[in-house]
Every structure is written in C-alpha cells, then in structure tokens.
C-alpha cells in the first residue's frame, strides 16, 4: 500500500518543525505583522537548543533556551517594524541572513567546528509513541492557538488589532502591545521548532540545517490563511508531498522530481485556494501579506 501509517508518520515528523514555525507566523499575520524571518528564528533555536543541551546535559533546558533565544531574536522584528516602522519584509530577510552567519560563527567559536556539530553524548529529546514531546506540543499548539484566536479574549483583541489597529485603539486596546506579543510568541514557537528539529527530528546541529523549512512555514501561513487548522492542513499537505516523494523515489521517480514536487503541489494548492476564495467572496479580509506590493 502506498499510503500507509508509515507514510503518515513520516509526514507528521517532517511537518512538526514547520508547523510550530508556521503557527508563529500565523499569529504574526493575525496581528498584522508579516513575518518572513521564521527561517532565521528557527535556526537560532536549533543552535541554542543544541548548545544548551550540550553544556547542561539537559535537552529540556535546550528547549527552554531555544524558545527564549528565538524570542529575544524576534525582538529585531518587533522593534524594527512596530516601534521604528521599518519594512517587515526587509527585516525578515536580514534576520534570515544574520541567523545563518551568526550560528555558523558561533559554531566555530563555541564548538570549534565548522559544518556540523554532532556528538553521541549530545542529549536529544526522548521519544514518546514515536514522536518527541514537542510534536505533541505542536499539535496541542494548533488546538490551543485555534482556541486562543477564535475564543479567547486575547485572541479576539489580537485579531482586531491585526485587522483594524485604529479601531482597536479607539476602544482602548494598544495595537503595539499586541503586535509585540504576537512577534515574541512567534519567536517562542520558532525556537521550539528549532529545538524540535535539532533535538527531536535529529540530534545535532549543522549549518543552515533548517534548509528552507522556515520558508515553507511562510508559505503554509499563506496557504492556511493564517488559521491554525488551515496552517496544519497546509503543513500536512507539504509533509505528505515530501514523504510521498521519498516513496516515489523507490518507484523510480528521479530525485529532482521528488525534490520539486512539494513546491509544485503547494503552488497548485495556492492557485486553487485563491481561485476559490475569489469566487466565494468579492470582499476579502485585508491581509498584511501585500505590505510591500
């Protein structure tokens, strides 16, 4: 059977870091901040998680430190775009570049190696039922953030801020505060995504190990329309396309085709969802994704 539980498991494992990061991106999107720095924030999380786990021996401290470090790193976006009103896209791209340079630099200075740091005694996250605890956390985060956004007072206010900041302000809600909160939370989630990748999916750090997952998360936010469940579906689509690609290699499909498949599938899904959205309503919710156009 082509689609079996192993394929699903594989897809689920592959999508966990993407999902965590994309949830962060979705929160930002909802607050009206376009965050394309997910890749960089995640990479900072990877490095911090591995470094902390290595020096303390505790993967849990690694997870914690990753969340904190990525949140601190996300302040660049918060301060730059909310307080100083800089362009979020430019900031995000710069953050991605900075993270690659910074983690490589730190890898050399902290561990004295280049490329990859791997050691059998580096403690990774334990597996529970085939998944790391962070994977369960990620799935829980989908529910929690869906609930938070749709039902919680904070989420309601956040959505209001993202859609019409001046309207929120007239009712006494500070848009800046909510935007900061969303960006910092996205930092935390990207930190967790990095920790999951570096201590969960595998147990090592290598330069640029996020390998474009942050960008996929950005696309998942867009495809999932910044809804937690939509983001989950988008990530799942990507994960399944990738896992199916691995199988198709076994059936003789060239590696290059299976490499491209997830992106093509995503693009087609975007076409379809945009077309559907256009058909359904002339009036669309304003989105921050068009900030620079």
């Amino acid at each position, binding site marked *: 059977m082509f689609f079996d539980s192993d394929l699903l498991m594989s897809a689920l494992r592959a999508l966990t870091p993407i999902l965590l990061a994309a949830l962060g991106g979705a929160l930002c999107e909802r607050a009206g901040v376009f965050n394309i720095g997910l890749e960089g924030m995640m990479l900072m999380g990877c490095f911090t998680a591995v470094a902390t786990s290595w020096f303390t021996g505790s993967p849990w401290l690694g997870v914690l430190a990753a969340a904190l470090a990525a949140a601190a790193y996300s302040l660049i976006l918060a301060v730059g775009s909310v307080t100083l009103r800089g362009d979020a896209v430019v900031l995000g791209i710069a*953050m991605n570049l900075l993270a690659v340079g*910074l983690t490589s630099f730190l890898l050399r*200075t902290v561990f004295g190696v280049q490329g990859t740091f791997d050691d059998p005694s580096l403690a990774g996250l334990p597996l529970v039922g085939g998944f790391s605890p962070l994977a369960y956390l990620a799935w829980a985060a989908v529910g929690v953030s869906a609930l938070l956004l749709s039902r919680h007072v904070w989420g309601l206010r956040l959505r209001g801020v993202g859609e019409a900041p001046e309207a929120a302000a007239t009712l006494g809600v500070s848009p800046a505060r909510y935007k900061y909160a969303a960006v910092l939370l996205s930092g935390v989630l990207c930190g967790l995504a990095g920790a999951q990748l570096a201590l969960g999916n595998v147990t090592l750090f290598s330069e640029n190990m996020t390998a474009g997952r942050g960008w996929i998360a950005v696309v998942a936010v867009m495809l999932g329309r910044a809804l937690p469940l939509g983001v989950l579906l988008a990530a799942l689509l990507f994960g399944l396309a990738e896992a199916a690609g691995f199988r198709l290699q076994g059936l003789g499909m060239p590696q290059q085709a299976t490499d*491209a498949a997830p*992106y093509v599938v995503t693009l087609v899904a975007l076409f379809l969802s945009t077309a559907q959205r256009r058909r359904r309503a002339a009036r669309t919710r304003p989105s921050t994704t068009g900030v620079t156009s």
Partner: protein
Amino acid sequence: MDLTLDRVKGALRSPVTFSVVAGLVIGALFLVGTGADPFAAYGAVVTGSLGADGIGSTLTTGTSVLGMALALAIPLRAGLINLGGDGQLVLGGIAAAVTGLYSPLPAPLTVVLALLAGVVAGAAYAALAALCENRFGVPLLVSSLLLSYPATSLASYLVRYPLKEPGSSLPQTRRLPEGVALPVFGTSTVTAGLVLIVLAAAAYWFADRRTAVGYEIRMTGLNARFAAYAGVERRRLTLRLMATSGALAGLVGAIGVLSFPYRFLDGSLTAPGYTWTGLTAALLAAAAPLGTVVASFFFAVLQVGGLSMERTTEVPRELTQVLQAIVIVFLAARLRFPRLRRSRGKPQEPAAREPAAQGEPV
C-alpha cells in the same frame, strides 16, 4: 559651499552611514569577544579584496552580485519583491549551456546566442511568476519563491541525465566547445561579463533617471495609487519588470556558464548565494541604481575579503556575513545618528528621512 557642507553632513547622518558604521562596530565587538584584533581583521578584508591579488576575484564576484542585485532592484524600485532569482539564474545558465553546446553557428555568434538564450529563459520564467500574481492572485513574493525550486530541480535533472557529460562523475554538462566563452581580461578571472553587467547597470541608471518608464517605476514604488491615477497600468508594469528582472538573472546565469569552467555544473551557480547577496544589496540601496552598484561592490569586497581574512588570520569568514546582515537590519529599521544640533536644516529633514526609499547615496 554651505550646501555641500550640508550635503556631506546629510550623508554622514544618513541611515546608510549609520548602519555601516554600526555594523563595523558590532563586528569589532564580536572580534574582540573572540580574542581577535579587529584592525588586523578588517585590514585583511581590505587588502585581501582590494589588493593586487584580490581585486580580480572581487570583480568576478562583483559581476555576479551586481547582476543579481540589479535583477532584484529593478522590480524592487516599483515595490515588487522577486524571491525567485535562483530559479531564473539557473534556467538562464542551463539555456546558455544548451545553446553553447548545440549551436551550429561559429563560436563568437554562439556566445551571443547563448547570452540571449539565458536572457530569454530567465525573463520567461520570471514573467510566469508575474502572471501568477496578475492572473491568479498569488502574491508575487510567494509565486516567485515557489517557482524557483522546480526550476533548480529541472536544471539539476537535465545535467544529471540528458545533458550529462559522459564519463564524468559530476552532474555537469560537457565543456563548451573551444572559443564558446566570454573574453577574459588578461590572466585574470574577470570576463567581458563584467562589462555586460556594468552596461546593464548604466542602462538601469539611465532608465531610472532619464526615461519616462524609469520615472513611472519610481513613482509606482513610492505610491502605487498615485501612479495608477496618472495612468500607469500596474499589471503590465509588473509583468515587464519581472521579465526584465528575470532577463538579468538569466544573463548572470549565462555569464556564469560562459566563464570558467565553461560548463553548467549543478549547484555551482546558486551555491555562492548571489541571489540573496544581490537582494540584500538592492534592499540596502533601496534599489537606487548607483546605490545598488556601490552596495554590490561593498558585499563583493566583504565576501572575497572575508575568505582572504580567514586564510590569513584566525577569524572565520562568517563574520563578514554577520556584518552584512547587521547593516541591513539597522537600515531596515532606519536607524541613524542622533542629530547634533537641533536648529539646522529644517527643510532638509524630510529629505534626509527618505534616502532609504528614494535617494541616491552619491
């Protein structure tokens, strides 16, 4: 006299200056933190990139960086971000390689044809991303990014199977026939590609400053509704700008293939990250033509000098990458030196505020 002084002061206070200085200072702190001597390190960067041994490499790297920077600056001038530079670059390269290998024409004509093929391939592919936005409503940022991956995979497939050099263990095409190559300056690695890219930069400068189209592009970038009100059609502009952008990226790819080692080797066009460096340079200069040239040269110096610094000192080259990113973070946040005296130059204030969006830093 006073005006020049004001200008100098304005330039010194501009976010560009601030960002570069801040980047250098933070980089120096990093260096001190790791026990290295910042002066020696920066000195090594400068001599390694601008000294007799390094200038050739700097110009070679600069050719690609500037080419990609121009490719990304042109749509950026109208507020459009093309994230698909890699795909367009690679398709340009593979198109040039195929043309170079199979063209029946004499070598010099084949070179021209190969360059054209690269240009056309890149332009067509970038136009596809524009169509995705214009026709299907998929934001350009995403459509260009997503389209980039299949393009690199396609090129990779082609050189692995149908175009693979027989007997080679590398995914690469055969070497282009003798003479199908861009002329080289002396014994250096600098090719006529540099001339082409510099010409492209000059054309961009000219178009930006002195043509109606350039004017429309600038105004669209500053206020798209204003441009539309005056009759500039956004979709058509998007399509044309993206095609131009892709054409340049394709040209860079073709130049890469028509330079040493005169073949398409999978990954060799994209691995050095010219697309991102170019985008950074374009963003740094707010897509202004001269600024883009200066920023590209600055980054080429950092890259070549950084590698040289790593060879001659203990300092890792990632430092230069960090430096580059810090500069752009500061620039995006439009940080600047605090004003020293409050009273001066009131009418200049708004002018000084915008160089990131408009001004030529020259």
